[in-house]
């Protein structure tokens, strides 16, 4: 539709960008994708996200938005088909809570588990596992966080087990295993098997060296 153009500024290896790609795919939105070179950020990126200068940036009808979780909410509110957030206020609050929990608590402890050494690493890994285990509360009696179908939380956090799987090839630490986190483990395998999810994943052969460089930096 003219004047309804959607553009996404992204980076192939960014989990935050992947969330937005998944959300747009679930909603069936067509968009123009612009790959950013993060070592040489474009004028467009700097103009559209002057505060953080990061991807993703969604530009809809010429208006830019930054911060992936906010972009997800915007997408859900603008395009009503296949709702991402649940209907009830309490469930919506829970969805926002778990999504933010992954960004604020899980991710830093997971990164620490893979980038530290010795005793610090053991401690970080323990904390990371505790945090991941907590997520199972959100899966109680459900196939996905969104229920029978994927929803906001699945899209917001589904990247994490994929990245962890790759990082586990670089650093010999096991964070998610079928025994201690059965719900999380089966959720992840069901999620990653969904065609629109699978086809947007960054390929392992590219992500592995990229993750190695990131962790060893």
């Amino acid at each position: 539709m003219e004047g309804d153009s959607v553009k996404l500024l992204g980076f192939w290896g960014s989990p935050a960008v992947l969330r937005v790609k998944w959300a747009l795919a679930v909603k069936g939105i067509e968009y123009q994708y612009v790959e950013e070179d993060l070592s040489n950020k474009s004028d467009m990126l700097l103009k559209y996200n002057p505060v953080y200068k990061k991807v993703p940036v969604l530009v809809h009808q010429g208006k830019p938005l930054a911060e992936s979780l906010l972009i997800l909410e915007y997408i859900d509110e603008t395009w009503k088909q296949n709702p991402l957030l649940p209907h009830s206020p309490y469930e919506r609050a829970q969805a926002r809570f778990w999504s933010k929990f992954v960004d604020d608590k899980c991710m830093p402890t997971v990164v620490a588990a893979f980038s530290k050494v010795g005793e610090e690493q053991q401690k970080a890994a323990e904390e990371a596992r505790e945090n991941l285990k907590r997520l199972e509360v959100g899966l109680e009696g459900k196939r996905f966080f969104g229920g029978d179908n994927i929803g906001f939380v699945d899209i917001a956090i589904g990247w994490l087990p994929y990245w962890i799987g790759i990082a586990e090839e670089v650093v010999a630490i096991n964070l998610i295993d079928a025994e201690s986190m059965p719900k999380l483990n089966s959720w992840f395998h069901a999620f990653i098997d969904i065609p629109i999810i699978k086809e947007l994943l960054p390929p392992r052969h590219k992500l592995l060296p990229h993750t190695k460089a990131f962790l060893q930096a």
Partner: protein
Amino acid sequence: MSMYIAKSRLSYIHTNIHRTQEIVCSQIQLFNMTPKILSKDICGRSWNTARCYILDPFVSLACRKTKSEVKLLGAWPSPFVMRARIALNIKSVSYEFLEETFQPKSPLLLDSNPVYKKVPVLINQDKPICESLIIVQYVDDVWSSGPSILPSEPYDRAIARFWATYLDDKWYPTLRSVRGAKGEDDRKKLITEVGEGLTLLEDALNKTSRGKDFFGGDQIGYLDIAFGCFLGWLRVTESLTGVKLLDQVKTPCLVKWAERFCAHGAVKDVMPQTEKLVEFAKMLMAKMAASTPN
């Protein structure tokens, strides 16, 4: 009326407890209320029996009313708690405010927020909601007939959320660290960063208010709440450093906005006095200095 009848009924039941236990049981669960809640909220006496479910219409009705009670677990100096209070005030929701003791953290806090163990926690119909911005959105969602807190357009909502997240992730942590700055150079650098953030917010105010009094337009909204809650601590920092952060020259619109915000009906009774906050800050700083090894 029914609460009075419920109380006297429960008194009767309490004194005739053994007979009551026989009557009890396979009856309909009373809205999942346990005797502990019944006794504390209605009767004020402890009930040392095994679980009993009472099918008494007045007690049921009283419990139904108690069950819909809204509670907010918080602390008076916390700007995050203030957000939840302002949101509830905007919607004219009656709630019970429970001041958290912290040392040690109460069982209610640990039970209702096991992940972060922090205030505020909103408890509505026994269900806890944590994280202040999530609480504000929840309040807006639940009490939808009251004045709206978030803007109506998706793009405006996204912008409001963007700045609120910026305040929490970047601006407020910088403001906090001014008080703990090591050395004058460090302090100056942080103060400059706080000032730069305020310039961004001045610009955001001009864009989102569209010439009206608040970020939310004619009425205070999500971003007013998200930012306004920090005004007390902003003034504390100004007082302790002797530096004017919100100033007439650089951020004239924010200065006017701050006055209007603090005078607003939904805000003025829950905004702590700056002098009390300064005292509290000094006490915290003294505690930190005492516990830091030499």
